[in-house]
C-alpha cells in the first residue's frame, strides 16, 4: 500500500467475529450451531443508527470489501474502487458492513470449520445452506450491531440474490435495495455450469468424498476456469487475448498451453485453489442453484416479489450472458406490477458478468445518485 492509496482508502482494517451460540434452523431442516460470522465494518454508525449499508459479496468474494489487512498487504479489498472516503459508498457518510456468508471459507462457519460434535472438519456433514439462511444469519449480526434499518443493502451476482432475499424476508429492515448483475431465479444455463463445476471437483480423486487434507487442486481449478469463462464475454476475451501465443512464435504441436487465454485461465485456476475451499464451492453453488423467488408462487414473478416494500435500483450489464439483462428486466417488471418505487439501468459494457466489478465509474455515478436521494426516506 503506497501513501496515495492509503489516503483514498479506509486504510488498515481488522476482520471481526460474531458468534451466534444458539445457531440457526436452516431451510433444509437441520440446525447449524454455533455459527461464527466473520465481518468487516468501515465508517461510523450515526447516533440514530440510520446510515448503515450492508454490502453482499459474490460466490468467490468475502467480507474484505475495502482497505488493507496490514501495511504490507499488496491487494486491497474487492470493491476498493467503490468503498472508501469520498467514494460511492462513502465511509465518511455511511457505516458499511460486509459479512462472510455461511458455507464459505473466509472466516464464517462453513464445511472447512470444525464440527463441535466430532472435533473434525464438517466436510460433507455440513448441512446445505440457502441464500435465505445466509440472510437470516446476517439479520442476527444486524441486531447485534444495533442497526435499526439498513439505509441500503447492495450486492452483485450472488450478492444480488442476498439483496433480494433481504428485501423479501425482512421488508421492514431496509430503506433500499440495489441488486446488481443478478437474477431473481437462476437460469438453467447457470445451473448447468454449476453442475459441471461441481462434477469437476467431485471427480478429482483428491476430493475423497469431501474428506481431504490437501485440496482437490485439479478439480477445483477446472471448476474455477469454467466459471471464469462465464464471467467474461466473447468480446472481452477477444480484446484481452486475441489469438496471441503465450511463450513462442509458433504452435508447440502438443497439448500443453500455447495461447495466452489458456495461460490466463490456468493462472486463475491456480490462484483460486490457494484461497478457496473445494467443499465451500460445492455448497455455495448449490445455494445459488436453489435461488428462486418464485418457487412458492408457481413462477409468478410479481407474486414472488410481493413482500418487497423498499425502494429498488436494479442494474444489469449489456454483455453479461451469465445473468443477462432480460433476467433483471423480468424482476423489474414484477416490481412495477407491485407498484414498487423501482429504477432500472442496463449499463453498456463489454466486460460480461465481471462488469459489476469493473465498470466502477458508471456504476459509481449511478449508485451515488441513488444513495443521495435516500436521505429524505429516513424515518
Amino acid at each position: 500500500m503506497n501513501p496515495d492509496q492509503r489516503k483514498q482508502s479506509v486504510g488498515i482494517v481488522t476482520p471481526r467475529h460474531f458468534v451466534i451460540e444458539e445457531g440457526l434452523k436452516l431451510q433444509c431442516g437441520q440446525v447449524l450451531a454455533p455459527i461464527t460470522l466473520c465481518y468487516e465494518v468501515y465508517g461510523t454508525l450515526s447516533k440514530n443508527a440510520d446510515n448503515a449499508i450492508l454490502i453482499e459479496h459474490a460466490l468467490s468474494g468475502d467480507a474484505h470489501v475495502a482497505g488493507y489487512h496490514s501495511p504490507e498487504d499488496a491487494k486491497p479489498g474487492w470493491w476498493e474502487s467503490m468503498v472508501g472516503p469520498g467514494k460511492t459508498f462513502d465511509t465518511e457518510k455511511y457505516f458499511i458492513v460486509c459479512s462472510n456468508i455461511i458455507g464459505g471459507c473466509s472466516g464464517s462457519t462453513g464445511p472447512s470449520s470444525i464440527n463441535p460434535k466430532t472435533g473434525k472438519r464438517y466436510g460433507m456433514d455440513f448441512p446445505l445452506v440457502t441464500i435465505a439462511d445466509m440472510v437470516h444469519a446476517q439479520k442476527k449480526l444486524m441486531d447485534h450491531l444495533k442497526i435499526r434499518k439498513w439505509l441500503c443493502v447492495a450486492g452483485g451476482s450472488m450478492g444480488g440474490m442476498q439483496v433480494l432475499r433481504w428485501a423479501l424476508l425482512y421488508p421492514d429492515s431496509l430503506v433500499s435495495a440495489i441488486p446488481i448483475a443478478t437474477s431473481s431465479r437462476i437460469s438453467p444455463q447457470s445451473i448447468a455450469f454449476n453442475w459441471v463445476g461441481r462434477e469437476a471437483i467431485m471427480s478429482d480423486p483428491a476430493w475423497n468424498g469431501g474428506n481431504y487434507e490437501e485440496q482437490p487442486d485439479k478439480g477445483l481449478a477446472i471448476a474455477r476456469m469454467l466459471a471464469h469463462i462465464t464471467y467474461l464475454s466473447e468480446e472481452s476475451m477477444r480484446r484481452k487475448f486475441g489469438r496471441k501465443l503465450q511463450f513462442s512464435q509458433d504452435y508447440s504441436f502438443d497439448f500443453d498451453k500455447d495461447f495466452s487465454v489458456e495461460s490466463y485461465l490456468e493462472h486463475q485456476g491456480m490462484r483460486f485453489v490457494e484461497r478457496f475451499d473445494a467443499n465451500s464451492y460445492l455448497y455455495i453453488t448449490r445455494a445459488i442453484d436453489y435461488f428462486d423467488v418464485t418457487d412458492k408462487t408457481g413462477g409468478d414473478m410479481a407474486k414472488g416479489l410481493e413482500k418487497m416494500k423498499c425502494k429498488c435500483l436494479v442494474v444489469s450489464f449489456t454483455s453479461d450472458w451469465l445473468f443477462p439483462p432480460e433476467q433483471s428486466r423480468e424482476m423489474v417488471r414484477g416490481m412495477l406490477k407491485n407498484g414498487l418505487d423501482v429504477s432500472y439501468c442496463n449499463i453498456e459494457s463489454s466486460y460480461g458478468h465481471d462488469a459489476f466489478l469493473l465498470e466502477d465509474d458508471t456504476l459509481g455515478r449511478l449508485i451515488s445518485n441513488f444513495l443521495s436521494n435516500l436521505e429524505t426516506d429516513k424515518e
Partner: protein
Amino acid sequence: MTTIRLNHDTTLSRRDLETIASMIPGKSRILDLGCGSGRLLKFLAQLKEAKVMGVEKEQDKVIECTGRGVPVIQADLNDGLPDFADNSYDFVILSQTLQAVKRPDLLLDEMFRVGKTGIISFINFGHCSARKQLLFGDMPETKTLPWKWYNTPNIHLATIADFRRLCTQKNIRILREIPLTQDGDPFAFLAGIWPNLFSSTCVFILEK
C-alpha cells in the same frame, strides 16, 4: 418565470406548464416516455405529489434521473411498453418523441393500454417555415428540427392535421390542443387560430 425544457430547444413556459398541471389531479400516477433527465417528472412530483415514473433509452440520462430522485426504467420505446401493466397510470406523457419511433401508431396503442390520458407534444411539420422550405425544393431544417434529411432521428414527421386524422382513425379523443411557438416568432399570436401553420409544436391531451 418558471420554464421547463422538454427537449432540445422547446421550453414549456409557466403558462403551458400550468395548463398541463391543471389537468393533472393531485397524487396522479404519471408515466413519462422519453423522460430525458427527469426535469418534468421532478416538477410534477413536487407540484402535484404525483407518483411518477420515467422511461429513457440513454444511460447518462437514466443516471441523471436517479440523481433527481426520479424513478426511471431504461428501455427503448421501439419495443413498446412490455414492462408496464394495463391501466397502471393515470397519465402517460410523450414529449417530442412520437416522430422518432419506428411505429408511432403502435406506441400510441401501447400508451392507451398502459394509461388513461395521453399528453403528447407533437412537432408540427406543417409549420409555415417548413412549408416555405419545401416550396423551394429543400427538406426543411427548423429550430425544432435542426437535422439534415440523412441524419435526422425524426423518421415519421407529420403535420398537426395528419396527427388529428390518426387519432380519429384510432378512436382517440382530443380533449385539448395547446399550440406552442418558438421564442421571438413574429407570427406567434396566430398559433392559436391556425396551429397547423403557425405552431412549431403542439401539446395534445388525449383519451381513448
